[in-house]
């Protein structure tokens, strides 16, 4: 079986592998590469990382399962983490989260039908002073309200469409 990652990201993989005395130490950065390539850690991605790190796929899968920032299920193109911890909640994050879900028409942790957005609530993301806030594909967006949010969502939707068209 051809190893797509090894072919496509040879340089980056080599960079990570060269940082450690042991191949298996590079497993976490390589998992991020796999996630980037496939959108989530598909069985194919796990296999390929296992091969690159000279590990058993079971061990790679175990690592992917332990850390929350690896996606083990296919998720939307934009992965929104809304903080609903106490300080954010005091500044209205819970209402904001409920409104956001209602606006997108999905449940907590759900994905929109077109596969663009996945929304989850998370514990503190260390931006309490700028609440309500969320993180989209690991980038912060702060001082939010629903008006701002709608703008952002429209913008992301356009990006997603552009990306999809480019892909074709």
């Amino acid at each position, binding site marked *: 079986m051809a190893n797509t990652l090894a072919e496509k990201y040879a340089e980056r993989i080599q960079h990570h592998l060269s940082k450690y005395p042991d191949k298996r130490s590079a497993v976490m950065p390589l998992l991020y590469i796999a996630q980037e390539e496939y959108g989530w850690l598909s*069985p194919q991605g796990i296999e390929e990382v296992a091969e690159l790190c000279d590990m*058993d*796929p*079971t061990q*790679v*899968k*175990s690592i992917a*399962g*332990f850390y929350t920032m690896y996606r083990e299920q296919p998720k939307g193109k934009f992965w929104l983490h809304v903080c609903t911890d106490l300080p954010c909640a005091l500044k209205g994050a819970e209402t904001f989260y409920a409104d956001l879900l209602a606006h997108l028409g999905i449940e907590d942790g759900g994905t929109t039908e077109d596969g663009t957005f996945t929304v989850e609530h998370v514990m503190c993301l260390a931006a309490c002073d700028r609440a309500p806030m969320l993180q989209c594909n690991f980038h912060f967006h702060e001082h939010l309200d629903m008006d701002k949010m709608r703008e952002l969502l429209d913008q992301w939707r356009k990006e997603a469409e552009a990306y999809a068209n480019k892909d074709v």
Partner: protein
Amino acid sequence: MSDKVKIIIDDIEYEVPAGSNLVDMAKWYADNDIPVFCYHPKMEPVGMCRMCLVEQGSIVKDRETGEVVLDENGNPQVRWFPKLQTACTQIVHDGMVIRTNTEAVKAARENVVEFLLTSHPLDCPICDKGGECPLQNLTMAHGPGTSRMNYDDKMHLDKHVPLGDLIFLDEERCIQCARCIRFQDEIVGDDVLAFHERGRKLQIITNSDPGFDTYFSGNTTDICPVGALTTADFRFGARPWELTEVPSICPHDAAGSNISLSVRLDRDFGGRAMIKRVMPRQNEYVNEIWISDKTRFGHHFTRSEDRLKKPMIKKGGVLTEATWDEAIRFVVDALKAADGSVAAIAGSSTPNEDLWTLRKLVEGLGGGLLGAWTPTHAGADLVAQVGVGKGTNLGDLGQGDAVLIIATDLEEEVPIWRLRLKQAADRGAYLVVANARKTRMDDFASDTVRYDYGQAAHAMQNLDAAIAKKLKEANNLIIVAGAEGLTLDGSRALMQAAANFLIESGHIGKPNNGLLSPFPGANGMGLHYMGFSPEATLQIMQNPPKLLIVNQAELLADDPFAAEWLNKVETIISLNLFPDAVSNMAAAALPIQSFAERDGTFTNGERRVQRFYMAQGPMGEALPAWQVFSQLSEALGQGHAKLSAAAVMKEITENVEAFAGMRYKELARVERQFPDVGGEDLYYGGTAYQNKGGLGVQIETSADKGEAVSVGEVKLPDSPKPKKGQVLVVPVAQLFNRQSTFKPSVLVHPRVPQPYVEINSKDAARMNIKTGDLVEVMMADQIRVTVQAHVNGGAPEGAAVLPRYLTDEATPMVLTVGEIKKV
């Protein structure tokens, strides 16, 4: 274990070996079972379950004088640690004081058990572990009796998750001790199990293909302290308290693993005693407490409906059923008619008693040739001279020792040796693996050596100087020499070369030093001591006698060329478990009992003579082979027939020097073994570990006895040379195969590979063959098999590796020249 330290357990002082584990020492010396779930004496401690909490302190010594400080009563003052410590992670040291019976310790144990039970289902009535379950036992012993938790809150998870074809996981029952994961990682080296997710969602997963891909998966069910892992074989088979444990020996390979056959009466088996499961039996010299999946799941052949059940004799050219009396008379007449031109061939899993009575019968008739089957592995006589010394324990090998494995794939041939030598390498032993191809053992080797097929002896004689130096200078050296890719002459040359190496470097006549060979079957060394040899088999092949007795050897299934010379034999008397191609040719086909139905002994590869006991009800009218031979001898006027296997063994001890002093009573001796698992304890799981059937007795080598052994001449034979367009077809062992003694284990079938041949990528490219293509392998211009091609880097250039016993057709026993064509 020379340094001793003094520790105090519950106010009593004990002297224990320095550097050992507190839980083990408390159990061994103080008979104090500190409860554990995650700890296992065979594995590194992790301190995960917190069940072993004890109060710990140390005796206060004056910093300046180093003297023990006394309190007002004149007792040593103890500085107690502020919190409870996990006993399993403590290494004993001088002045260590622990208490295991205080209120704090009791409360801690109660709480741990209560917490473990918050999500444990109360499945005990139907759980396979119920009755021998450490969690059950420790709850009864240390649990709180009632729980403060709300049982409606229990997690409900999947009850039936197959981890592969042989093992099932019950996610609810798992208490996340990681024993199974650590076993696969530390002991086996196949790390195909792991935790997934975390917190309450933590689960055991396998992601290998096929699932739980290892030859040792069954052991995880033994060490599982709950019923989370169960085998497909025993699932709901019986309740543990209904089982009777019968000590036995694995009949499949040269390790001679000690096993317990758990038997119970069964309606499906006509109300007779039937093997419900196979469990390991502790023998620290042989298999510790581990067995391979072939040993564990390969017992179904003993009660296969295909077994030969009645004596058959040829009447008017047709085999017809007869009574034993008729059959014995018929065979006696045939033996008399043969006029002394009698020979015998015995299979490599024939017990010692059968071999001896067969030899007496043949010699009594004036015959002489006693052949060992299969004639592939030579050099048993060399093992008898310079084999591993008496008292050898592969588990003792470590730093400073060396092991050379040559011309064998131990994973497939003797998995238990592979397991134990892998651990030796982990402990620091210098492990060299020499073979013409990559084998699993390479993964654990310190150095690997490659040679061309057929050149093993040459490679042995011309080891790389640096490697040879390290081997020679090692404190202890064991050479494991097989016969992969060798003819019988080649095998002899290799064994001689290996023996010479050992003799020259002085690694003989001492424990943990000497020669080992993975002879096929369970009694390869027994064949030698009873006078059977592969060389005699070759002579029989060249000059077939008038009458040939074939015992438990499926000549035609093993060797496609056997028909040629067997046709020249006038009368064949076949004794076998199954009707096979040989018994179809035979004048008389007599049913014999398998190892499970009778008493007997096997001599394992390390020359340990070990007893197995009668466990299962017999199939049909089958008799133990020794009884048949004994009755034939009596009918021929060679003296009274022996009445028991023990009596036969007594006769052996009087006649075969190596077996002197090996009466059944001696073989049944046991002693307390470290670590103490099984028996009365509450937590190492399984009741079948305890060894009540005997540790066996190891035969001394000539070198052990101090006899002079000298270097022999190595005759390097010509090895077959492939011409252009041809390849060397090398038969190799495959653990899970379609041999008659393994085929009836239906549950393992999904794990038996489809017939395949491994081809080198260069050869494959030349022949335009890809992985998965069907190819026809033609060997020695006449044998054809159609198999799948694998091009996975498992074969050296110019060679095709063809695993044995996967195809329905017989394939050559030794390497041949052949051609491969795409179909």
